[in-house]
């Protein structure tokens, strides 16, 4: 046995040496992603969004020029204004999803030349899908010879393509596809064509296993307390055969079933994993960030803590069996889906090496656990929280609150948070806020009343803090870099739902407004719209900004560097130019207002050897640049801005980087407002030409 181990060690050493000798040669016998490549959505399976490249650095970032660009308008029957993808670059080819058909494109990474394109025409099934448009990306797999690209269509079919040609791999599933609405331990209702389930994130492949979660439509105004469930599955990357399934809502007899009182596990749905999944291949563990159960803001039909809603779950890569879990929010009521990839980090705390997992969140907490045991690295006591008074609701009396690191963005609203540029503006802010219930994190929603409160004014809920772009991690310094919206206010009011609109007692709405069922983009809004109930007396439209100024003080959006060894901030900066509406505001003339950052929640970061790079989410026009947005670079040790380059539109997909032919490139997706989706590649000017 010992001799066998020695033999194995020797062969491992030989293999490592061979890899070192071959590196960075392309096309080695086995697939070993290189530091110069970007082989999965988050750069690696640990979700770091990190590459140790340094050709583009502080001294030259502002010299970047556009190497190539590709518009996504023609990759679908209509242009897309919400391009959220991050491409991959492996073995000399760049792959991405793009356009309103969620086409897959393969490009020359140096020139942008289109090598092949693949699109699926799904007809009514695609048209009825809950999550449409181009999605966030795709997955790459290779055994050293064959190369495969995997992605999920809007209609929830897993497609496997030959990476070299874009042609379906016929030996995978049914002629290159697996219908994900089948073999899911549930009957998708009402039927396969229109049944609500899909996904927009990129699949993950680890050790020949493809892992797929599930997503649904907006959860603020569900039509029913019943919905399809968002189980997670592992499939064989060679055959498409299902290897395992994890029930995010436990079945009868399974652990956690009793956290759904009155049998509510039977009919409650959603509770999927719609964002990126991370994997520790060495430990053979998968980290699943689970979203909210059906009905984001009212849980009266699902009494109990509702495992595994808003829970970080660790399962075995080979079997899908649960190893540990930690529920971040008991009985979810705030739409605090765990919205981004858990980040795997090998850190040193009090001199002790630890394998950790760090989870950014909408509520601005960075939850850090031992990723082997699931135990919090720093104490995370259960603290009492406000118990609300919505009829029929079930409240958890406590929630876990991390003691370290401190919250990196606002997660509640108090009078102290309101703007105070001038006494007059502050008075107006207070007047608006007086119509709402205020409080710290986990202040529950209220029933919306014309006489007040119209709802609870929340932050760090549906759109605050960190959303799907997640954070980045520097394995050299053990530092997490994470963008957060620090001003994304969400008023959460509940209204009684008319029977013809929903069978749920309360859905999101505002007193005096017609009750609306909220849809995701591309849903057949016309056909699905409920009959409007009789219009009620209007309460007037309360604007949550004052002459274009956010209701709360700056900074409006931040990037925070957090040391995982210490659980402390290294630095925090406002990210993004001060909005035009603030900079040019007549009421603020004469005031010296430092850069405020911007009110947006879709910003992803990239970390290189020396820089943290992120684009802006708003368009501005300044003396330094025409109407547009900037891609900014910060010194990763200090947060000091060291360069910026112009983008024609805001960043809507997180940036990535790679080297090809000796040159480093940065690719970012931009879109929004009048600007349709485009991938833009930047590189340094060639010298001597």
């Amino acid at each position: 046995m010992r001799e066998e181990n020695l033999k194995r060690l020797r062969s491992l050493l030989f293999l490592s040496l061979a890899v070192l000798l071959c590196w960075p040669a392309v096309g080695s016998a086995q697939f070993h992603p290189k530091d110069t490549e970007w082989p999965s959505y988050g750069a690696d399976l640990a979700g770091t969004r990190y590459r140790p490249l340094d050709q583009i650095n502080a001294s030259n970032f502002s010299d970047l020029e556009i190497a190539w660009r590709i518009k996504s308008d023609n990759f679908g029957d209509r242009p897309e204004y919400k391009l959220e993808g991050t491409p991959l670059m492996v073995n000399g080819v760049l792959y991405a999803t793009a356009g309103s058909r969620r086409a897959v494109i393969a490009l020359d990474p140096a020139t942008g030349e289109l090598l092949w394109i693949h699109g699926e025409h799904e007809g009514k099934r695609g048209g009825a899908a809950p999550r449409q448009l181009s999605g966030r990306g795709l997955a790459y797999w290779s055994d050293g010879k064959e190369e495969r690209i995997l992605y999920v269509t809007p209609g929830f079919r897993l497609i496997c393509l030959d990476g070299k040609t874009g042609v379906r791999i016929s030996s995978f599933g049914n002629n290159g596809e697996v219908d994900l609405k089948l073999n899911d331990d549930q009957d998708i209702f009402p039927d396969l064509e229109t049944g609500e389930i899909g996904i927009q994130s990129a699949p993950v492949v680890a050790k020949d296993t493809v892992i797929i979660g599930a997503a649904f439509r907006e959860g603020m105004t569900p039509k029913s307390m019943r919905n399809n469930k968002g189980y997670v599955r592992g499939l064989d990357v060679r055959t498409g055969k299902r290897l395992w399934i994890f029930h995010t809502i436990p079945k009868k007899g399974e652990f956690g079933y009793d956290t759904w009182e009155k049998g509510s596990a039977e009919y409650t749905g959603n509770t999927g994993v719609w964002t990126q999944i991370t994997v520790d291949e060495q430990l053979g563990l998968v980290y699943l960030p689970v979203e909210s159960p059906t009905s984001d803001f009212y849980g009266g039909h699902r009494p109990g803590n509702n495992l595994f809603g808003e829970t970080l779950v660790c399962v075995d890569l080979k079997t899908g069996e649960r190893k540990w879990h930690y529920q971040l929010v008991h009985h979810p009521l705030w739409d605090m889906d765990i919205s981004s990839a858990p980040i795997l980090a090998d850190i040193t705390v009090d001199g002790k090496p630890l394998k950790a997992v760090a989870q950014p969140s909408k509520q601005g907490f960075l939850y850090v656990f031992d990723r082997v045991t699931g135990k919090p690295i720093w104490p995370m006591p259960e603290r009492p929280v406000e118990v609300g008074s919505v009829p029929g609701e079930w409240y958890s009396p406590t929630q876990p609150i991390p003691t370290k690191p401190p919250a990196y963005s606002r997660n509640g609203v108090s009078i102290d948070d309101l703007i105070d540029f001038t006494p007059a503006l502050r008075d107006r802010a207070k007047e608006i806020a007086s119509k709402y219930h205020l409080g710290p994190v986990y202040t529950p929603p209220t029933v919306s009343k014309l006489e007040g409160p119209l709802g609870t004014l929340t932050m760090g809920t549906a759109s605050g803090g960190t959303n799907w772009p997640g954070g980045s991690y520097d394995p050299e310094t053990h530092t997490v870099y994470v963008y957060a919206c620090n001003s994304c206010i969400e008023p959460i009011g509940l209204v009684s739902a008319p029977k013809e609109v929903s069978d749920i007692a309360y859905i999101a709405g505002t007193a005096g407004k017609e009750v609306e069922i909220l849809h995701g983009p591309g849903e057949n809004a016309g056909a699905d719209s409920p009959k409007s109930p009789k219009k009620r007396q209007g309460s007037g439209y309360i604007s949550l900004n004052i002459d274009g100024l956010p209701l709360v003080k700056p900074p409006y959006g931040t990037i925070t560097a957090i040391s995982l060894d210490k659980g402390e901030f290294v630095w925090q900066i406002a990210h993004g130019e001060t909005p035009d509406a603030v900079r040019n505001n007549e009421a603020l003339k004469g005031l010296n207002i430092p850069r405020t950052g911007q009110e947006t929640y879709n910003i992803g970061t990239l970390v290189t050897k020396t820089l943290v790079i992120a684009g802006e989410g708003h368009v501005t026009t300044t003396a330094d640049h025409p109407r547009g947005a900037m891609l900014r670079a910060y010194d990763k040790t200090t947060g000091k801005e060291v360069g910026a380059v112009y983008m024609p539109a805001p960043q809507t997909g997180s940036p990535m980087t790679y080297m090809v032919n000796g040159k480093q490139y940065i690719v970012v997706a931009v879109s929004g407002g009048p600007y349709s989706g485009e991938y833009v590649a930047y590189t340094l000017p060639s010298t001597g030409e």
Partner: protein
Amino acid sequence: MLALVAIACPLCLLRAQAQEESRSVWDGVYTEDQAKRGEPIYHKECAACHGDILTGGESAPPLTGGAFLANWNGLTMGDLFDRVRKTMPQSGPGRLTRQQDADILAFMLSVNKFPAGKTELYRQSEMLRQIRFETTKPAPKK
């Protein structure tokens, strides 16, 4: 009639044109009645994704507040109108009439607290391109 005015008073026409070009969303470019007409159309055709108080959804952008204002600041109402015509409603782009689209935009302007005026918002893109979208209220003329 216009031609007659042009012949009779070319300078008047030029002046009128100059005034037209200098209009912005702060100059009362829609009427209250038009915004009221647009409200039910918004709720029927748009609110499902963009929300009952225009604050957007997880996937549909807000039509009020910082990001919305920033996206369109410095452009024209024609740009905004064309974007709506070309892509909305998502279930059937171009399904609504130009009048309905203009009424919806009038409602959006009212929710964003741009002042109403005496003339309705135009239905023609070319004319709407003469109206600048500016997020900041201009300083009162002295």
